[in-house]
């Protein structure tokens, strides 16, 4: 009888041993795993640092025509705060319109290759002109000054954690003591978990009938933030406690505290989460940690519990109450004296406006991402905290966005047939803005709404350019001559009548708009009025291959089929290519490579990459000038003359573009300093039914009017070797006093007409030579 009992007992003991040893094995394996996890975090890469994209710097110099509103808006976007008295701290400014003074206490910033020191400066204005810039710290007059670039957006993985890591020695003891006072008073007395705190929390929660107080130590909070979710479950709490014990066993209190101060979440600025004590100090007070007052330190410490509810941006009252609770704690713990306590209570919290980082240029940022992807993986871009400095002018970018959005809306209001119900075939548009001299892409809007469509029409949409391609034909013609080819000048008479162009066994018959033909017109008139027949005749004379070569030379990169219809723009190009090619004309024949990314630095401010301005002289300045002079006529009296009536009166050149089937409307136009291309159409290539002058030109005009307002008026400089001659546009010959119409035309020296107008004979010619 004893044997079965013994057997059962033995089985039980053995089972128990097996279970216990299995439990021990599993437990030690699990502990080992947790330890590895904790170690990996503490000793590996703790945080991901998103790369940040910045605009170009903002240069101010003596003599610049400056709208104070623009400057103030810029300062506001940069997070500068207006001060009633002379600015005393970095990040403050004061504007005194009656005295024509703007005082700014500049912030420090490091730009690749240059470190800009924060200093108080005074800008004197006479009307809208800067007359003097002084450094108030040194008393020196300055030639120019630069405002730091604006943060456009961050490139992050899932969430944007904004933080700068600091060491414990960089954090004033008052701040750490304030945080410990409200979050974990017995931090230096426990080993990761604090039974006293737990008991107290249990007691409070039992009395209140719910979970109102936690007993987590600072180490447990760190473990939760590092590894675990916010859910309040028993298993999570156990895991958190075990990890805290492991961390306390392996690492010092100071190491844990330092990690905590860098890890904690302390607020939200739009899509940007504010993490760590350094970032919070900047976000709430625009100050380094060492400059924080007792009241400010207490406020930051108080925020840890509920950063958004207690934020002074949300409620000054709630933030003040919480700050005062922390101050009481600090007084009780004798961290501060009564005098300090009372002074801190008197500190008022200023009402401040939160400047959110909203990414106002999503299409531009996508373009940058594509450019950056050539050299940096997505992992590098989202984790290594690169700084990407770009050519973007945020002011121009906003103007471009607004002009496009408003322009398309107006078109839909004026032409209701353009309103479509389906989202997929909405009326769309794109605008790209370049500085011709440098190739810098100053603004880019790839569509009407980034939320609805991320397709960037500036560089991804290949569309027929229509008549904006014609200037390449005319340029090729001006460059032709010799080898039996006809020589063209702006005054050459060309025929504008229906004709057939036989090519490769096929006939092509280009037709004019409304089938209206003008017989014989000057070269200039044919371009200004965008006459298809005359243009095609010129292209036939020059050779279509030559036209294609010229377009490529200027900057078009897409393949261009050498067929007759190319002369009227029957190829497919992107708006960016169009901008590139025409910027060569605007820049006197010098092609400047489009430049979006200028410099990339790593987290240690070491330059990883610098892209310089690259130029190539591909055309003589004389030919470029003649083209600009011709294209100026398009705005002054050609297909785009309505822009003048709409109030854009600066010297500018441009060309309208409409495809034969009215699917695409274009306008490319430029002053010597700024070029913009506008495209309007439907993504599904439905018929738009409007010309470039009707659809794209209004948007361009609005953009240019706003973009150039207040800037100096510049004109195209006439290079040597050009003769300006007064001609009769009807005959293309030198004007006489009897000519009713005259035009000042530009010619290459030696190519100007020598005969007087046969239509209005008698008087001697009026020729002026400029060289």
């Amino acid at each position: 009888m004893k044997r079965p009992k013994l057997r059962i007992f033995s089985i039980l003991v053995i089972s128990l041993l097996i279970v216990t040893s299995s439990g021990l094995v599993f437990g030690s394996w699990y502990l080992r795993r947790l330890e590895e996890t904790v170690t990996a975090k503490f000793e590996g890469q703790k945080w991901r640092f998103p790369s940040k994209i910045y605009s170009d710097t903002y240069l101010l110099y003596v003599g610049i025509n400056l709208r104070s509103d623009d400057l103030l808006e810029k300062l506001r976007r940069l997070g500068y705060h207006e001060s009633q008295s002379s600015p005393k701290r970095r990040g403050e400014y004061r504007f005194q319109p009656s005295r024509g003074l703007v005082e700014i206490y500049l912030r420090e910033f490091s730009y690749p290759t240059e470190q800009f020191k924060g200093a108080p400066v005074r800008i004197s204005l006479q009307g809208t002109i800067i007359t003097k810039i002084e450094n108030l710290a040194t008393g020196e007059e300055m030639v120019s000054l630069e405002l730091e670039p604006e943060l456009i957006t961050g490139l992050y993985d899932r969430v944007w954690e904004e933080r700068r890591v600091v060491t414990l020695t960089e954090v004033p003891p008052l701040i750490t003591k304030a945080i410990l006072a409200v979050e974990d008073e017995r931090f230096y007395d426990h080993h990761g978990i604090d039974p006293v705190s737990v008991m107290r929390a249990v007691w409070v929660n039992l009395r209140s009938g719910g979970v109102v107080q936690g007993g987590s130590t600072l180490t447990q909070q760190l473990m939760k933030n590092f590894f675990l979710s916010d859910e309040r479950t028993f298993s999570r709490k156990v895991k958190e406690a075990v990890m805290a014990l492991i961390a306390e066993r392996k690492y010092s209190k100071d190491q844990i505290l330092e990690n905590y101060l860098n890890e904690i979440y302390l607020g939200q600025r739009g899509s940007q989460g504010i993490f760590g004590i350094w970032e919070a100090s900047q976000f709430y007070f625009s100050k380094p940690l060492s400059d924080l007052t007792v009241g400010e330190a207490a406020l930051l410490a108080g925020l840890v519990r509920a950063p958004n509810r207690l934020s002074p941006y949300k409620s000054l009252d709630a933030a003040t109450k919480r700050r005062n609770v922390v101050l009481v704690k600090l007084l009780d713990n004798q961290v501060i004296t009564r005098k300090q306590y009372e002074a801190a209570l008197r500190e008022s919290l200023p009402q401040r406006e939160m400047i959110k980082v909203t990414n106002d240029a999503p299409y531009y940022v996508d373009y940058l991402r594509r450019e950056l992807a050539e050299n940096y993986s997505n992992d590098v871009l989202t984790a290594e905290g690169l700084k990407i400095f770009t050519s973007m002018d945020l002011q121009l970018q906003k103007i471009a966005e607004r002009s496009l959005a408003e322009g398309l809306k107006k078109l839909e209001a004026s032409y209701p047939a353009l309103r479509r119900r389906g989202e997929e075939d909405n009326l769309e548009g794109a605008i790209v803005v370049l500085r011709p001299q440098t190739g810098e892409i100053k603004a880019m809007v790839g569509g009407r709404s980034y939320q609805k469509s991320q397709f960037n029409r500036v560089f991804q949409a290949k569309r027929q350019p229509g008549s904006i391609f014609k200037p390449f034909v005319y340029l090729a013609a001006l460059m032709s001559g010799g080898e039996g080819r006809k020589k063209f000048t702006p005054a050459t008479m060309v025929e504008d009548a229906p004709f057939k162009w036989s090519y490769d066994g096929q006939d092509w018959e280009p037709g004019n708009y409304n089938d209206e033909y003008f017989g014989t017109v000057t070269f200039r008139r044919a371009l200004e009025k965008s006459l298809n027949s005359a243009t095609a005749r010129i292209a036939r004379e020059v050779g279509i291959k030559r036209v294609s070569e010229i377009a490529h030379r200027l900057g078009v990169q897409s393949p261009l089929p050498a067929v007759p219809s190319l002369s009227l723009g029957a190829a497919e190009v992107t708006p960016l290519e169009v901008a590139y090619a025409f910027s060569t004309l605007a820049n006197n024949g010098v092609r400047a490579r489009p430049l979006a990314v200028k410099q990339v630095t790593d987290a240690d401010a070491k330059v990883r990459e610098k892209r310089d301005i690259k130029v190539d002289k591909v055309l003589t300045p004389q030919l470029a000038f003649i083209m600009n002079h011709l294209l100026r006529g398009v705005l002054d009296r050609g297909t785009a003359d309505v822009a003048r009536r709409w109030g854009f009166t600066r010297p500018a050149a441009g060309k309208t573009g409409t495809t034969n089937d009215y699917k695409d409307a274009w306008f490319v136009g430029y002053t010597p300093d700024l070029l913009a291309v506008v495209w309007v159409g439907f993504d599904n290539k439905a018929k738009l039914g409007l010309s470039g002058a009707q659809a794209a030109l209004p948007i361009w005009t609005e953009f240019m009017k706003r973009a150039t307002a207040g800037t100096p008026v510049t004109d195209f400089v006439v290079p040597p070797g050009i003769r300006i001659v007064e001609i009769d546009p009807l005959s293309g010959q030198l004007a006489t006093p009897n000519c009713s119409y005259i035009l000042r035309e530009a010619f290459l020296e030696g190519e100007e007409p020598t005969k007087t107008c046969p239509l209005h004979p008698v008087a001697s010619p009026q020729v002026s030579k400029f060289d």
Partner: protein
Amino acid sequence: MKILQDTFSKRIYLILGLASIIGATQSCAPRPVYRRPPPSSSPPASSPKVPPAPAPSPVEEPPRTPLPQESKIREQDLKTKSPITPPAAKETVKPPLLAPPEPTTGPLPDDSSLLAKITPGTPPQRAASLRLTEEGRKLLEAGDAAKALSRLEKTIVIDSTNPYGYFYLAKTHYQLGRFKESLSFLDVAESRLSSEPFWLAEVHALRGENFRALGMSDKAEASYAQALRLNSGNRTANDALTRSQKPTQATSH
């Protein structure tokens, strides 16, 4: 007979063209830009008052009212330009290496001071651009080419017509060993410096340095020679010739 035919067809074309243009003009709104007011009539009240232009010829021409839409050329800028310098690139006869070419001008006075070019009449953007160019030049001389490049790029952003900015950008790229880029900037500088022989000589001399660095000694020699032709006192070109003379002299002894 053929001549008669040609003349006849030309006339026909002219008449047809004239008729079509007149037709076109009538079909569009009249463009005031083309219209010259009749000599007897007074300008419209809304037209801006313009002082009568100086008579260019014995035949008195009635003053023409410029209209707002007309393409205007800045004559005041143009008239200050000096005659065109003969093209330099197409050298058919190579200058001898050891015998410097006969300079067409003597040594020109030093015109390298950029700040001296700023006068009360200098447009503000040109003045600011020149000051930044000067800063860039100093940085370059101090050996900080990277910083100089950043500063000099701003000079052409402020004033794209500042030729000295392009010249020093070329010099910076040369110092950074980017000879092709340097040559591109020199092309731009040259087209904007045609009326300044001192600076044009500097452009040719630096071009010579770039060609030399690229191993294109023939082109380098031609560029140095051109620089000396413009300014026999050009130091870069003279130094280059001295350098090329030294080894030859050493072997001749």
